């Protein structure tokens, strides 16, 4: 039963990643936009080195949030035309598998985006790395939380004409705790703050768990009505 769920989820994720690989929208458009956001922040802070270093963890997550919203947007835009949503609904996949599959594909794309953003933050904002394990744990769990939340709200705005503007308005306030927790944990990982970072990873894990559970329940009704 559970194995089937994950096998189906893997199929859905594979489909989405294959579309992404063929169109390369994340690589060609979203990653450059993420880097652009970091550069624009440097302009806004008048290239003040100490300020940028202090704010680097937050700026990293702001980049992930805004560029990531486009990844989520894209993940559900590809379902729109040619009755693909109906095809997915008729495919026999359980809603839970569709939810986990969509979230997994978003997760993979976000990780690629984050690698580029991390390199950008290290190079542009001059931050060091004092706890690589904490960095990996924070980004992996925080990103999983973002991807799961994104999949729920992506489905919520699926097939709606005002989706482009509606999704960010819905998604960003909800993922604000991920921005908060992720930023504080990365401050510790970058050695900017002496506060414990692992507590925040705990919080991110709880958020991720809550949204995974909600998505498994809510995705079915959302897909039915879209």
């Amino acid at each position, binding site marked *: 039963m559970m194995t089937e769920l994950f096998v189906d989820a893997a199929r859905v994720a594979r489909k989405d990643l294959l579309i992404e690989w063929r169109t390369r929208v994340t690589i060609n458009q979203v990653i450059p936009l993420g880097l652009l956001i970091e550069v624009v922040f440097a302009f806004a802070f008048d290239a003040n080195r100490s300020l940028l270093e202090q704010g680097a963890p937050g700026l990293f997550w702001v980049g992930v949030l805004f560029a990531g919203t486009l990844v989520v947007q894209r993940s559900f835009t590809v379902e729109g035309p040619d009755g693909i949503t109906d095809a997915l609904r008729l495919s026999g996949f359980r809603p839970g598998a569709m939810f986990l599959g969509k979230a997994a594909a978003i997760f993979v794309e976000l990780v690629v985006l984050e690698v580029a953003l991390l390199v950008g933050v290290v190079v542009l904002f001059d931050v060091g790395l004092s706890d690589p394990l904490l960095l990996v744990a924070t980004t992996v769990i925080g990103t999983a939380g973002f991807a799961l939340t994104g999949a*729920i709200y992506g489905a*919520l705005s699926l*097939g*709606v*004409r*005002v989706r482009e503007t*509606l999704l960010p*308005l*819905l998604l*960003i*306030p*909800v993922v*604000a*705790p991920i921005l*908060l*927790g992720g930023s*504080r944990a990365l401050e510790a990982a970058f050695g900017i703050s002496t*506060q414990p970072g692992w*507590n925040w990873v705990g*919080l991110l894990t*709880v*958020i991720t768990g*809550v949204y995974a559970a*909600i998505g498994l329940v*809510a995705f079915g*009704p*959302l897909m039915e*009505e*879209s």
Partner: protein
Amino acid sequence: MSGATDRGDSRHLMTSSVATRILGWVGLAAMAVMALLGLVVSPRDRIQGEAVRLLYIHVPTIWVAYGSFVLTAVASALYLWRGSSREDRGRHYDRIAGAAGEVAVLFLALTLVTGMLWGRITWGVFWQWDARLTTTALMFVSYLGYLAIRNMPADIEARSKRAAIAALLAAVNIPIVHFSVEWWRTLHQKASIRSDRNSEITGDMFATLMFSLLAFTLVAAWLMIHRYRLVRLEEIREEEGLALAVSARRAEGVNA
């Protein structure tokens, strides 16, 4: 105001009835008395001075807002679980959720504005990044998103279902946001403004506060009932519009 009979002639439907007119006048009178109590009868506070009068709006509005959010969540849950088995397919619950959501956002906005004014006088700044303020601001934005879903151009059933799910998600999200923001502020910097916030309120001030709560509750109830009826009229108008368009198309077919 029962279903089928008034559908045919919605132009004569009103959002007010005798009961709501009385409720409206009582609410208005209560607001006037509240202004008198808050501005004249109630004494100035020993520590906060005249600024304490803002709390007679600030505190009741947040209570009413929270109450309305609970109502939105409960009505949304009822819509999802019980809606399909009802004759009206849960429209009643959906309208309650929507009306309560709108009133909640309005009252939360009042809370934020009065809070900022109070903060400017008491702390010297409009905004402090303390846990309660940050949580309230995020909640405000979340429910703006909920209202955006309610207003999106889509099929009414789909819109209601998504709005109900969004309302429940927003409710689940409140403790998450609250906890993370609280933790953020306690770990990061100690809140410096706690001391004067929990000062005890007694006597005339307490009575004024309780009366304000009553006045705002009456006004909120009046607004909600009117919003409920207005949404219902909008739905009837949409249905009538559709029926008219269908009959116009049929008439075209006959003439051709």
